[in-house]
């Protein structure tokens, strides 16, 4: 296989691996820009993946699966909101709790309902899974050198959720930076007191941000279980929620940067999967474990302020106490 074909294959799997990260990182973006830290992305994604796969298997429809994925994810997001907005609890603690509740519940319910060792039934029926969409002329231009494979392999042939994820990036940018809701949402993450003074409810605004976060995590989970794979397997998120969190920080809480950070982390993952160990000029070998941990290492380096400074929303993590 030529270098070019290999590159196309790697980029193709980069896209596939980056999609759940993009949904989850954008989910975190809404929440954290409103001042609610969310380390429960992983748990929400996992619960959504389970709910999506279970519903898609039972009702035979990928769309119903997506619907239930979003419902469950939003429900968990509301638990996080209830604890951290209404009861002013510690947001980190609440997020940790949600991760554990999701991890345990998906396995217990999966085993009780389907009895396949925590798996949901494989989604084989027509329409029970989001399948690849062939874009027009993909077949026809496949033989055109250079651009042909890029179009037919890389751009065409993904499921609808992949295109939605890419559309969600400019949409999020538009919502956050060009609408009144977005302005207020960002304001409540920086200075909730000012928002309150303007007569806008901090609580309601933050709840809406948390719900947006739930919806997008629902998409992330549905993508994993109903599009990328044909069903749920236990612990299938395998830390993707935390990589998404890393990507969000790496992107300095900006939507377009989120896209780039997720593609970078997806690329690292794709390379690590493709090459067991990469040999650099025959001098030394880079172990695949190093490639896998590179997103985390990069995030730590970034957080340390050695490559630019990641400044979180100012009021992030602090419950808002209305003055009397």
């Amino acid at each position: 296989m030529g270098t070019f074909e290999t590159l196309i294959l790697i980029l193709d799997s980069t896209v596939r691996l980056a999609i759940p990260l993009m949904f989850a990182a954008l989910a975190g973006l809404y929440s954290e820009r409103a001042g609610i830290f969310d380390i429960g992305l992983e748990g929400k994604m996992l619960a959504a993946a389970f709910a999506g796969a279970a519903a898609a298997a039972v009702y035979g429809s990928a769309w119903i699966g997506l619907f239930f994925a979003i419902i469950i994810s939003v429900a968990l997001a509301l638990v996080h909101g209830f604890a951290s907005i209404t009861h002013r609890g510690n947001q980190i603690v609440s997020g940790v709790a949600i991760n554990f509740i999701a991890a345990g519940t998906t396995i217990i319910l999966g085993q009780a309902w389907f009895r396949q060792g925590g798996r949901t039934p494989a989604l084989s029926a027509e329409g029970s899974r989001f399948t690849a969409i062939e874009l027009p002329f993909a077949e026809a231009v496949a033989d055109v050198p250079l651009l042909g494979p890029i179009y037919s392999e890389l751009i065409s042939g993904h499921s609808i959720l992949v295109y939605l994820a890419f559309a969600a990036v400019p949409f999020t940018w538009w919502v956050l930076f060009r609408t009144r809701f977005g302005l207020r949402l960002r304001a409540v993450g920086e200075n909730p007191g000012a928002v309150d003074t303007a007569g806008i409810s901090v609580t309601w605004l933050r709840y809406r941000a948390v719900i947006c976060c739930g919806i997008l995590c629902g998409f992330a989970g549905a993508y994993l279980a109903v599009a990328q794979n044909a069903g749920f397997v236990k612990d299938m998120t395998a830390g993707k929620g935390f990589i998404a969190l890393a990507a969000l920080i790496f992107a300095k809480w900006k939507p377009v940067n989120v896209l780039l950070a997720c593609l970078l982390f997806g690329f690292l993952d794709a390379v690590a999967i493709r090459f067991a160990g990469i040999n650099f000029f025959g001098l030394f070998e880079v172990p695949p474990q190093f490639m896998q941990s590179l997103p985390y290492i990069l995030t730590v380096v970034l957080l340390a302020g050695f490559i630019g400074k990641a400044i979180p929303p100012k009021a992030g993590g602090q419950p808002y106490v209305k003055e009397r």
Partner: protein
Amino acid sequence: MAAPYAKLPGWVDYGLIPLVNLTVAFLVAGLVVLLVGENPLRAAQLLVQGAFGSGDGIGYTLFYATNFIFAGLCVAVAFHCGLFNIGGEGQAYVGGLGVAIVCLAFDSIFPWWINLPLATIMAAIAGALWALIPAWLQATRGSHIVITTIMFNFIAASFMVYLLVGPLKPVSSMAPETRTFAEGAQLPRLDWMLEMFGLTIRSSPLNITFLLALLVSFGVWLLIWRTRLGYEIRTMGFSPTAAKYAGVNQTRIIIVAMLVSGGLAGMMALNPVMGDQTRLQMNFVAGAGFVGIAVALMGRSHPVGIIPAAILFGMLYQGGAELSFEMPTISRDMIVIIQGLVILFAGALEHMFRPTIARLFHMAGGGALRPAAEPGE
């Protein structure tokens, strides 16, 4: 309700409210059991029976509790400094490396009673080192320690996989683990201690690390409440500005507190690695580091609370394993749910029932204890 919470007597604050929170957590867990079509009361009965019904059961319960005591202390020390160390899992994993280095080097040279202190020191050093970078970044560059410690958990996982499939694996072996340690690095079991209470033991991994855990708990109490360093740590956690005004070197205190915290997590590795499996295996921590969060929250970051909380989780762990034989739909993963619910109700929602309890308390004639402001306004 911007009013400060009403003042309540100590037994309500440290006894009643945690108990209410815990009860609610277990009730919700009962709902999950109901949802999978089993009887929660019978499940609870089987669980307690599995954990305390036999000598072996008790041995296993205390064996798991040993891990959770270390993990709970790790989280608690950081809590006292106002830091949330989620990295106990990774620090314990790397702590295992410290244990393994001593064991592999000296297991056929020294007897266990020389190797144990050596391994303890190395485990603590390895765990502390793994906490050093997040601590240093938090103290000097303001990087959020929650995020960095999460990242270090993943880095630890990759790092240990690399070592266990590579340098640490015997050439002839396929399994990603070190060779089995010789007798000099196998810790004595505590069967005699349980037999003193008239229990019969067939196979229980409970070992001398349990006593070490109790000793270390006492040490942590001394450190936090009886030394100058502990005072500085608590001041820092209570009010960083007050600590600064009092001339506490914040950078130093954050780093020292995290080193102690990481060291405690590292020592956890002694119990499974040297006490039970007598070799370093992949994923031997198996989530115990995270249980520490629930244990510390439940035990209110005090050793006196942490030990019973750890035993409770040890009971859930051991009883849960027994339970899954009787009720196959309820696997050990039920514990993960309970753990999550405890963290939710005893941690994030710890103040949910407080106003209600305060109101009930005042209605019941606690008139002398007027709150600073009426709750509920």
